[in-house]
């Protein structure tokens, strides 16, 4: 794993402009994704993780969402300024994405083979037979049994887990440098989730691509990620190597999140830890730290001014006033 950054996100801002106000869904997000690593992007629903991914892909939903500023550098160039045509070249070939729900990701009226063929065709213009061979091979790589039979089947003839593998195959057949996985296992059966994660890890080892792994589940983070960024109310509040974060969570939100993951080693009959309160409305964000209302260690200045980014150790950083004093 080299130290080179394959993707650099700097101060990304994407707002929703609605009649009732401005929803600051992504409010200044910055992180680096190194070549060949798996970076987790963790946070609860609605914190802006998916939208960050869509902003990077420049596939914002219709209806008032706009990326206002920021830079997303892929191999040095800022892709936010690319023309739509150039962006289309990048999609599928240099950055790819896996969506959350396998039931709706695949077009129901086309065969799996056809949908793979579309993706493969973007990379090579081989003969029909060659492309078909590659498609079958792609299915084999994601561990689908009897791929030559499956190739002609339609999505509804496959289970959820298998469909998600197909989605994975489609995503990697363009040989991307970056794969964004948006909660890829959330909609799968628990028994299948682990298999899928292992598959992703294997694919990553084979291709050397970097993965931006979006999830709300810290347990998955522990298993999959090399580094993790914790997101809250539109901003990243803590970031660093996984082991560091687990052993020394520095931001109160991260601490609470980790504490709330149920553990096998807890006391029997103990209560599950939860975080009191609700995240702030993205329409009406406070001036200071956004976690202030729910924080057990809140001070006066937390409410007034947004905390600075403090280096905890090496690459581990967190945005909290409590850490400045050290």
């Amino acid at each position, binding site marked *: 794993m080299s130290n080179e950054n394959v993707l650099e996100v700097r101060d990304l801002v994407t707002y929703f402009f609605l009649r009732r106000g401005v929803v600051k869904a992504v409010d200044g997000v910055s992180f680096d994704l190194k070549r060949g690593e798996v970076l987790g992007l963790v946070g609860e629903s609605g914190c802006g993780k998916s939208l960050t991914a869509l902003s990077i*892909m420049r*596939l914002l939903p*219709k209806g008032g969402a706009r990326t206002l500023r920021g830079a997303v550098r892929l191999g040095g160039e800022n892709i936010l300024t690319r023309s739509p045509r150039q962006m*289309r*070249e*990048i*999609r*599928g*070939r240099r950055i*790819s*994405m896996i*969506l959350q*729900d396998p039931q*709706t*990701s*695949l*077009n*129901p*009226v*086309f*065969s799996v083979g056809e949908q793979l063929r*579309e*993706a493969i065709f*973007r990379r090579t213009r081989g003969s029909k037979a060659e492309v078909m061979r590659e498609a079958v091979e792609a299915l084999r790589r994601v561990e689908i049994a009897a791929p030559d039979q499956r190739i002609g089947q*339609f999505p*509804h*003839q496959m289970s959820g887990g298998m469909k998600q593998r197909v*989605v994975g195959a*489609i*995503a990697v057949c*363009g040989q991307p440098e970056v794969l964004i996985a948006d909660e890829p296992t959330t909609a799968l059966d628990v028994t299948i989730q682990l298999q899928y994660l292992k598959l992703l890890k294997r694919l990553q080892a084979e291709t050397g691509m970097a993965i931006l792994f979006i999830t709300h589940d810290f347990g998955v983070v522990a298993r999959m990620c090399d580094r993790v960024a914790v997101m809250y109310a539109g901003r990243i509040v803590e970031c660093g190597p996984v082991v560091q974060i687990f052993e020394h969570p520095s931001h109160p939100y991260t601490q609470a999140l980790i504490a709330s993951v149920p553990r096998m080693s807890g006391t029997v009959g103990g209560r599950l830890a939860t975080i009191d309160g609700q995240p702030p409305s993205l329409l009406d964000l406070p001036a200071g730290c956004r976690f202030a209302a729910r924080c057990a260690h809140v001070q006066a200045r937390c409410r007034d001014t947004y905390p600075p980014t403090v280096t905890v150790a090496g690459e581990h950083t967190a945005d909290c006033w409590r850490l400045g004093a050290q």
Partner: protein
Amino acid sequence: MGGFIARRLLQGLVLLVLVATVVFFLGRLTGNPADLMLPEDATAEDRARLIKALGLDGSLMTQYRAFIGSALKGDLGTSLRMRQPAVDVFLSRLPNTLVLIPWALLLAMLVGIPLGVVAALNRGRFLDRASGTIAVLGIATPSFWLGIVLIFVFSVELGWLPSGRMGGPEHYVLPVITLGTFLTAGFMRLTRSSMLDVLESEYVKLARIKGLSETMVIWKHCLRNALIPVLTLWGVFVGNLITGAIVTETVFAWPGVGRLTYEAVIYRDFPLLQAVIILKAILILTINLVVDILYAYVDPRIRLS
């Protein structure tokens, strides 16, 4: 798939029997239909004779059995006015209507579907609202009036097109436009809403993620899915066209089964009207069945189950 067809066939037959029964009983709801057909000065004997001739003597159930019995043999009564078996009259006029309907359907699709796609792609903007207004106009304009206006403008005032009757291609233009206008609006609205649904779907998002061109995304991924609901309603559409033909054929003096229906109403030719309704029911049910089979074939989710 075979089971699907068999089930639909059965449903169709049940429906047909239902329609025939309703027609039968509706016809005899208010006393004896013979009374409606008799002139003012008819004597009691005349009435008795007519009743016997129409088979209206005997209990309701006897009549019903006789009715179904002859129906199964292909006899649906005799037209009072034309003194011919109703079925024969119907069949002789049917081709004239059947020749009109496909054109109206084609017009409606060629104009309505693209308008709907354009509206969906430009949601909320001018093109969307403009097509929406055109669609509402198409629905609000009564087709009988539209036909008359078209005759007035193009036939009377401008003299470009004939005002009625069957004939060469120029005779088809106005009737087809009249018949197809209402349907065009329907296609436009349906395509638009269907496209809007599909445009939001995850698989379209994935198609974009793959980096496919926008044209590919819309024409290949969106349209194919968006047209499926449109296809399911084809049967209803054709049914609407068949009834719409009643008015259109009347306005344009077109010798089809629509005009036949009008004549049956105007001349109070009850046996003919009864037969026409049942035969149209058969026609509509058959078309619905064919459409359902087509739909089952097109949607792989049904074809392969």
